[in-house]
C-alpha cells in the first residue's frame, strides 16, 4: 500500500507502541503535524510544549521515568537547534530518545535556505546516532533502526532529520522485522572467566564496596543487585545517576559518592580494598582527584559500554555486558559473607557524617523541607529536580527507594530540566505522585512550560527552593572567590505564586518552617498543579563538598 512519508512515520510510531510525543510544529514539519490531524484516532498523545527544549526534556523525563523511548517532534532550523541542550543532556545520562526534526526540501538542502541548519552535523557529538532521510523508501527502516539503537546497548538519543519533500512523497510501507547493522552488536553476555575471577575477588575481599551507577537502573538489574548485597553484606554507594538503584533506607546504603557526595560514601570508598563498580563511568564528579581515588582498591568494572572500561581509571577485572545478566551469573559463583569488621568501621564513619545528623535549625531550610517530603510521601513519590544546590539537597536527603524515582540531569547539569522533565514523568506515570524540586534560577529557564503542565491538567507539586540567588554558584563564590557575588543575585524575581495563578495553577508561599508541612499536605490533596514557593535562607550552603582536584575523602564542612 502506498503511504505518504508522514503516514509512514505515524505507522512506525504505532508499531513502536509510542504513547506520547512532545513537540512544536513549524513550516518544515507541517506535513507531519497535518497528518496527526487527519488520523482518527491518533494512536498516541500529542503534547504541545511551549519551547522545543521543553519538548526534549519532557521526552527525556518520560523515558527516565518509564524506561520507554521518549519521542519529540520539532521543525527545522530554530526548532532543531532548540533541541541541542536536551539531546546533550540525554546523551550524557544514557537516556533513550528519538527526535524527529523537519528539514527544508531536499533540493534546498545546503543552500542556506530559510530555517535550514545542518542539524545532523550539529548533533553529531551529542547523539548516539543520527540520520537524514533522503528517500521516502528509507523512512521505515531508518525509524526502526533509530528506536532499536536508542533503546539497546548503552541507551542514548537518536535524531532523524526529514526533509519536507520526503514527508510528502509516497512510498510503500513495510516495517522491517529485523535490524541488520554490521557495525552495531551490543554484547550482552559477559565473559564467563572474568565473571568467575570477579566472584573469587569478591569472596576474598575484606573491605569491599559496591558503586551502583545509572547502568543498574537502565539494565533493570535492581533486584539482582539486592540479591548480591543480601548474600554478601557488601555496603553500597550510589552514584548520582544510580540513585534509586539501591534503597536509601537500607542499612547497607552508604549514601551518594563524589564531589557533592556524602561523607560516609566517600570515606568508605577511599578505604575499600575492592570496588565493584556497576554501570558507572567514573565521571570526574565521582572520582575527585584521579590519582588519589581509592588507592588501596582493586576495581571490578561491569558495564555495557566497553569504551567506559579503563577510560578514566585502570581496572583489574573488566566485564562487558548486560548488568542484569552478569549479576545473575555472578550470584551463582558467590557465597555468603558477614563482613562484621568492615561494617563496624562503617558505623564509626557514619557517626561523623553531617548528613545523618539531626539539627534544630528553626528556619525553613533545605533539610527540613526534604525530610518533610519523606514524611508525607514515605519515599513513594517520584522526585524530579532541576540543577543547583536544591538538586544536591534532594540527592542527600530525600528517600529514594525505587529505581526511576529520582530524575535529574547528571552529566550535563542542565538548568531548566526540572519542570519539563516533571511533565514527561507525570504523563508517563499518571498514578504516581510527582514532586519537582527546583531553584528560582533554573525554574525560570523553562518557566513557560507551566502552560503545558497546567493546560494538560498535570497534578505536579513544584517545591521551589527560593533563595534569591543562583545558589550553587553563589556558594562557590563564597568559598573560592572571596565572596564576590557577581551575577548571582536574582534581582527581579517575579512573584512565583502569581505567575502560577496566571497560568491557571495553584500557588502557595511559605516563609516559616511550621507552615511547610500543612501546606504540603494541602497541596497533595489538591490533585492539581501546585507550586510551593519556599523562601529558604539566602545563603544556605550544601555541605560537605570536595574541593575541585582534591581527593574525595577530603571534604569541606564535615565539622
Amino acid at each position, binding site marked *: 500500500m502506498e503511504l505518504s512519508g508522514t503516514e509512514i512515520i505515524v505507522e512506525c510510531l504505532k508499531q513502536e507502541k509510542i504513547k506520547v510525543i512532545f513537540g512544536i510544529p513549524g513550516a518544515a514539519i507541517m506535513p507531519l503535524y497535518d497528518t496527526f490531524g487527519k488520523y482518527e484516532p491518533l494512536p498516541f498523545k500529542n503534547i504541545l510544549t511551549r519551547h522545543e527544549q521543553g519538548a526534549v526534556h519532557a521526552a527525556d523525563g518520560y523515558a527516565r521515568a518509564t524506561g520507554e523511548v521518549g519521542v519529540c517532534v520539532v521543525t527545522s532550523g530554530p526548532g532543531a537547534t532548540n533541541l541541542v541542550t536536551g539531546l546533550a543532556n540525554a546523551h550524557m545520562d544514557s537516556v533513550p530518545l528519538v527526535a524527529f526534526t523537519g528539514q527544508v526540501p531536499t533540493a534546498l538542502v545546503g543552500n542556506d535556505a530559510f530555517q535550514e541548519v545542518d542539524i*545532523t*552535523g550539529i548533533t*553529531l*557529538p551529542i547523539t*548516539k*546516532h543520527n540520520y*537524514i532521510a*533522503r528517500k521516502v523508501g528509507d523512512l521505515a527502516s531508518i525509524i526502526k533502526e533509530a528506536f532499536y*539503537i536508542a533503546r539497546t546497548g548503552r541507551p542514548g538519543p537518536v535524531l532523524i532529520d526529514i526533509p519536507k519533500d520526503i514527508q510528502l512523497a509516497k512510498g510503500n510501507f513495510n516495517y522491517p522485522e529485523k535490524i541488520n*547493522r*554490521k*557495525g*552495531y552488536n551490543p554484547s550482552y553476555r559477559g565473559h564467563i572467566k572474568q565473571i568467575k575471577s570477579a566472584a573469587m575477588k569478591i569472596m576474598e575481599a575484606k573491605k569491599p564496596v559496591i558503586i551502583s551507577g545509572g547502568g543498574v537502573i537502565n539494565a533493570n538489574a535492581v533486584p539482582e543487585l539486592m540479591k548480591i548485597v543480601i548474600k554478601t553484606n557488601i555496603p553500597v554507594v550510589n552514584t548520582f545517576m544510580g540513585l534509586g538503584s539501591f534503597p536509601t533506607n537500607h542499612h547497607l546504603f552508604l549514601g551518594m559518592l563524589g564531589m557533592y557526595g556524602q561523607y560516609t560514601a566517600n570515606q568508605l570508598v577511599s578505604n575499600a580494598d575492592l570496588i565493584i563498580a556497576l554501570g558507572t563511568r567514573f565521571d570526574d564528579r565521582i572520582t575527585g582527584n584521579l590519582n588519589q581515588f581509592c588507592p588501596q582498591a582493586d576495581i571490578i568494572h561491569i558495564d555495557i*559500554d*566497553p*569504551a567506559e572500561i*579503563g*577510560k578514566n581509571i585502570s581496572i583489574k577485572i573488566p566485564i562487558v555486558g548486560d548488568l542484569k545478566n552478569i549479576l545473575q551469573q555472578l550470584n551463582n559463583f558467590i557465597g555468603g559473607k558477614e563482613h562484621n569488621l568492615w561494617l563496624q568501621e562503617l558505623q564509626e564513619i557514619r557517626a561523623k557524617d553531617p548528613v545523618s545528623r539531626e539539627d534544630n535549625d528553626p528556619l525553613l531550610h533545605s533539610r527540613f523541607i526534604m525530610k518533610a517530603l519523606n514524611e508525607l510521601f514515605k519515599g513513594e513519590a517520584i522526585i524530579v529536580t532541576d540543577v543547583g544546590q536544591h538538586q544536591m539537597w534532594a540527592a542527600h536527603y530525600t528517600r529514594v527507594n525505587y529505581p526511576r524515582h529520582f530524575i535529574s540531569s547528571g552529566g550535563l547539569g542542565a538548568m531548566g530540566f526540572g519542570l519539563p522533565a516533571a511533565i514527561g514523568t507525570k504523563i508517563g506515570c499518571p498514578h504516581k505522585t510527582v514532586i519537582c524540586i527546583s531553584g528560582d534560577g533554573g525554574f525560570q529557564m523553562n518557566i513557560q512550560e507551566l502552560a503545558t503542565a497546567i493546560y494538560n491538567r498535570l497534578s505536579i507539586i513544584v517545591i521551589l527552593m527560593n533563595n534569591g540567588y543562583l545558589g550553587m554558584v553563589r556558594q562557590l563564590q563564597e568559598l573560592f572567590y572571596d565572596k564576590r557575588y557577581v551575577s548571582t543575585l536574582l534581582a527581579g524575581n517575579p512573584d512565583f505564586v502569581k505567575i502560577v495563578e496566571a497560568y491557571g495553577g495553584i500557588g502557595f508561599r511559605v516563609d516559616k518552617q511550621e507552615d511547610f508541612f500543612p501546606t504540603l499536605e494541602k497541596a497533595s490533596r489538591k490533585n492539581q498543579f501546585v507550586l510551593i514557593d519556599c523562601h529558604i535562607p539566602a545563603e544556605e550552603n550544601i555541605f560537605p563538598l570536595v574541593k575541585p582536584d582534591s581527593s574525595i575523602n577530603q571534604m569541606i564542612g564535615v565539622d
Partner: protein
Amino acid sequence: MKHTIAILVEDLPGVMARVAGLFTRRGFNIESIAVGHSEIPGISRMTIIVSGDEKVLEQIIKQLNKLIDVIRVRDIPAENIIERELVLVRVHVDSLPIRSEIIQLVEIFKAKVVFVERNTMTIEMSGDEEKVGGFLNLLKPFGIREIVRTGRIAITRSSKNGLKV
C-alpha cells in the same frame, strides 16, 4: 608512538565526518586519514595514522567501535604492515642539467614524470613514509612548487591478518 589503524565502514554519507569528528572531539591526534572503496560493495576502508600511548590507542579503538557505521577496527602492528603513500610534486626546473639530475632521481626512486612545462616538472611517486620523505628531501634544493599527498594507506602483509567483515 605512531599507530596505524585500519577501519571498515559502511559507505554512507557523513561517515568521514563522524570518524574525523570523533578524533577532534576526544583530543586524539590524527596524522593522516585516507579512505576509499573496498572489495565489498557498500563498504569502505579507512587508514588512519595516529600518535599516542597504548591507553590512548585503546580508547580510540573503543570509541571508533561505538560508531554505528563502523564495522571493524584494528590496530595493525608495524611489523605486519605494508604502507604506501602517493605524492604528486611539482618541482622547479631552470636548466637542462637540472632536468637530467631530476630525471636520474626519478629513476632511482622508481617515480614517474607525469607532466612537463618549460620551468617545472610534475612527478608522481609512491612508497612508504621513509621513501616519500627521502625523495622530497632530495628534490627540495631544486625548489618545490607544490606537494599533494594522499595520506597513508596500509594493508596487512599476510591475508591471515587481513581486516574482514
